[in-house]
């Protein structure tokens, strides 16, 4: 019987929500939480011999410790294959799945299957790794797609455990990893290229053999000579907004930005501001909005002369960054940049959660 270990976050392990996002790595023998669903799909072919879980924040804030703890448990459990996810649109968990799979692949030489929505930030990291032992299956955006995701992931995991050769991404249904393999074909490259060209000219579909990676490469901007003499502005993606959220930001997938004036303020008083964001526990920021929009520190540095008098832009920009689609975020970034340039801002501090 195939031995499988399932890697989950605190939420999918059924331990708790944001209030448990700081829990350390834990291991349970057998299947708990979403791993039970995986076990159902595996039926007699495989056994979930252990479920490893951790808090979403814990993993990213203690990555080395978390990874070491997970590796130690896996060495004891000796699985044939590791399953991480599905993470759907959960960014922290999706990133953790890919990081863990990559470590497992490198350190233990095991093949892994993970699953998440194609727009999850974990996907771009997966593409960057080009790791031929990780297979990422696309899933629905939300956990309503759980049964379907596990139905695909379970047999895939069994095939990996059996050492089966897995075909190209397009044929097997996992997301491309940017790996090119040598294969023998009957027709030369010149013939194939001409076929593609003729298809293109005729407006017919064709599949390129060398897809271009589309990555923004942003050259670092020139430094500001002296921050004290520069016009500075602050952008906050943690979602600190005036109490009551007057512009109706959502906790996820926002499509617009706002700026809020603080020219007359020395501090952001708790109770007058709140954090709107579905991707982390906002309790700390509601108690002290400066964790996301550090106005008190900016005023102190102004008093010290480290920031010039009248040089701090009188408003801060905000968009809660949770689950933003890259295309929308690119547009928002361009709009904010245009606004900053129009007002002569030289340097920007972006506080992200």
């Amino acid at each position, binding site marked *: 019987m195939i031995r499988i270990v399932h890697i989950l976050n605190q939420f999918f392990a059924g331990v708790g929500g944001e209030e448990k996002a700081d829990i350390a790595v834990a291991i349970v023998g057998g299947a708990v939480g979403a791993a039970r669903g995986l076990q159902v799909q595996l039926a007699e072919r495989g056994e979930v011999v252990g479920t490893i879980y951790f808090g979403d924040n814990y993993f990213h804030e203690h990555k080395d410790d978390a990874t070491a703890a997970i590796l130690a448990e896996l060495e004891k459990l000796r699985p044939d294959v590791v399953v991480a996810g599905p993470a759907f649109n959960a960014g922290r968990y999706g990133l953790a799945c890919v990081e863990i799979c990559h470590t497992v692949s490198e350190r233990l030489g095991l093949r892994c299957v993970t699953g998440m929505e194609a727009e999850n930030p974990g996907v771009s990291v997966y593409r960057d790794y080009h790791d031929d032992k990780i297979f990422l299956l696309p899933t629905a955006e939300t956990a309503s797609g759980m049964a379907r995701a596990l139905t695909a992931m379970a047999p895939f995991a069994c095939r990996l455990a059996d050492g089966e050769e897995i075909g190209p991404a397009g044929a097997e249904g996992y997301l491309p990893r940017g790996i090119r393999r040598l294969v023998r074909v009957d027709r030369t490259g010149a013939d194939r290229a001409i076929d593609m060209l003729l298809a293109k000219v005729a407006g017919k579909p064709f599949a390129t053999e060398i897809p271009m990676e589309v990555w923004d490469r942003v050259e670092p901007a020139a430094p500001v000579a*002296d921050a004290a003499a520069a016009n500075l502005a602050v952008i906050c993606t943690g979602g600190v907004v005036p109490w009551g959220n007057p512009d109706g930001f959502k906790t996820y997938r926002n499509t617009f930005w706002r700026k809020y004036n603080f020219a007359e303020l020395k501090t952001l008083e708790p109770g007058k501001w709140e954090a709107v964001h579905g991707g*982390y*526990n906002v309790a700390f920021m509601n108690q002290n909005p400066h*964790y996301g929009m550090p106005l008190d520190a900016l005023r102190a*540095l102004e008093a010290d002369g480290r920031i010039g008098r009248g040089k701090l832009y009188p408003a801060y920009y905000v968009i809660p960054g949770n689950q933003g689609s890259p295309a929308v975020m690119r547009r928002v970034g361009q709009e904010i940049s245009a606004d900053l340039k129009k007002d002569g801002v030289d340097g920007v501090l972006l*506080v*992200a959660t």
Partner: protein
Amino acid sequence: MALISAMYPVAEQVGASRIVKAVAIPHPCGDPNLPAELDGQLRREIVSTALKALEAKVDRTTVFTPKVGADG
């Protein structure tokens, strides 16, 4: 631009130019476990590091670490 983030490895992976290590995802600029005064000092150090990052010439992804330490 200087990016203040607790998820700085992700910021590195996507190629941000100037990255400042923050404390934690739910409270990047400060640490609620510290007494208020130290918390305020830590926040000033983080923002101050971001100002230094703006003044630094960089030609690739560069991480700046506040002196107090990202663990508070």
